[in-house]
């Protein structure tokens, strides 16, 4: 996936949409939202759109959303982060900021992200003032963005083994509608 085009893309869109960020092009001229959308709709940005929709949806409701496999802290350092993804390693020299002050501090949040059914997209934390970047703790749940079909039982079992006690959910995005589903193992009790 393109590396230098991806930076800013998604977080950028979000911030622009909420009026919190102005994006300047190479000539220091403000880009309008339309121009930005056009720029970002070209090329390989297709699958990023769903990631952006989900990210925006949860962020605007106050959830803390981080990219799975990327650490929260340490500004300006190069970090090689391990990732739970089965899709191979991802380089990261990023950090995550909750409210970037300027685009330089905005990380390549969605750099190299792909939607695959086996790779979790986000760690999600409930809107909760106890969240600290320095010690985020376990996420409330891990979120997978589903691309094609609902997960099979075999896939779900594999994910349960992988994540252990941390719950996970699947997100389906279509027509701008973002829906979240849980597939939880259960056992109906034996009744008297």
């Amino acid at each position, binding site marked *: 996936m393109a590396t230098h085009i991806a930076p800013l893309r998604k977080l950028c869109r979000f911030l622009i949409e909420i009026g919190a960020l102005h994006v300047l092009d190479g000539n220091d001229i403000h880009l309008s939202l339309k121009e930005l959308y056009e720029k970002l709709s070209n090329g390989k940005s297709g699958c990023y759109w769903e990631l952006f929709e989900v990210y925006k949806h949860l962020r605007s409701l106050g959830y803390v959303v981080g990219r799975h496999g990327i650490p929260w802290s340490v500004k300006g350092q190069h970090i090689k982060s391990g990732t739970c993804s089965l899709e191979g390693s991802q380089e990261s020299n990023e950090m995550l900021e909750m409210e970037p002050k300027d685009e330089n501090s905005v990380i390549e949040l969605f750099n190299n992200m792909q939607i695959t059914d086996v790779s979790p997209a986000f760690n999600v934390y409930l809107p909760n003032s106890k969240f600290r970047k320095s010690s985020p703790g376990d996420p409330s749940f891990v979120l997978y963005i589903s691309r094609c079909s*609902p997960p099979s*039982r075999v896939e779900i079992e594999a994910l349960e083994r992988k994540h252990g006690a941390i719950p996970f*959910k699947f997100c389906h995005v279509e027509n701008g509608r973002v829906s979240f589903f849980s597939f939880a193992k*259960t056992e109906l009790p*034996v*009744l008297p």
Partner: protein
Amino acid sequence: MMPRWKGKGLQAKANADPMSKIVSQLQSSLIQFETRGLLSSCSVLVEVDAELADLLNRSCFGRPRITAQEDKQWFQLDMEEAFYLCFSLKCLKVIGEDGSIKSNEELWDYFKSKKLVFPVSYKVYSHLRHKNWVVRSGLQYGVDFVAYRHHPALVHSEYAVLALSEGDNDLNGRLRVWSDVHCTVRLCGSVAKTLLTVIVNSNNQVANSPSCLEHYTVEERTITRWNPERSREDQTGPKNGTKKV
């Protein structure tokens, strides 16, 4: 989702009258009267006296047929119900067109010929019935079964059940696409039920005879929709809820 009892005191009434005991009484009575069912297309018809009729009603097997007959009552059993009484509880015998009693293998073949997924749907039916849940047809809700904690007169059903098989021979074909997940979960939510998938693994057994059933394994899963707007305050974890769209 907690059970919703239909009135005050009904939970206590259910506790005082456990379903396992009612079913056990039904089983004894059917054996005692040497009850015979008549195979009729996809149903089995049984003619019973008042005592058995009462037990069938209380244990939720079959549906009474309205007839002009006064001393006896006719009940119509679904395939899964009939096979459960014959094969699992061994308290009913079924007679075919030719007047002879059908063996379990013959019944199995016959029901499979009427319903390709019968082995899977029967496994799910019997799995839940063994745990003393009341299991009825879920057709009106677009699912295979609905499961109640006790008699439907006492309690609303909590679960809308889909009997699914996994592997290449899956004939049910449900929940293969997201639109079906959306549709089914939404419908279940609108009737206050949780979608329960019971996934049957045949473990490569060929369904030639009912003895294959004991090699089938079963896993239960609920599919619920999470509503991020309603879960923000929950410190312990997201609640499951139906999102109004």
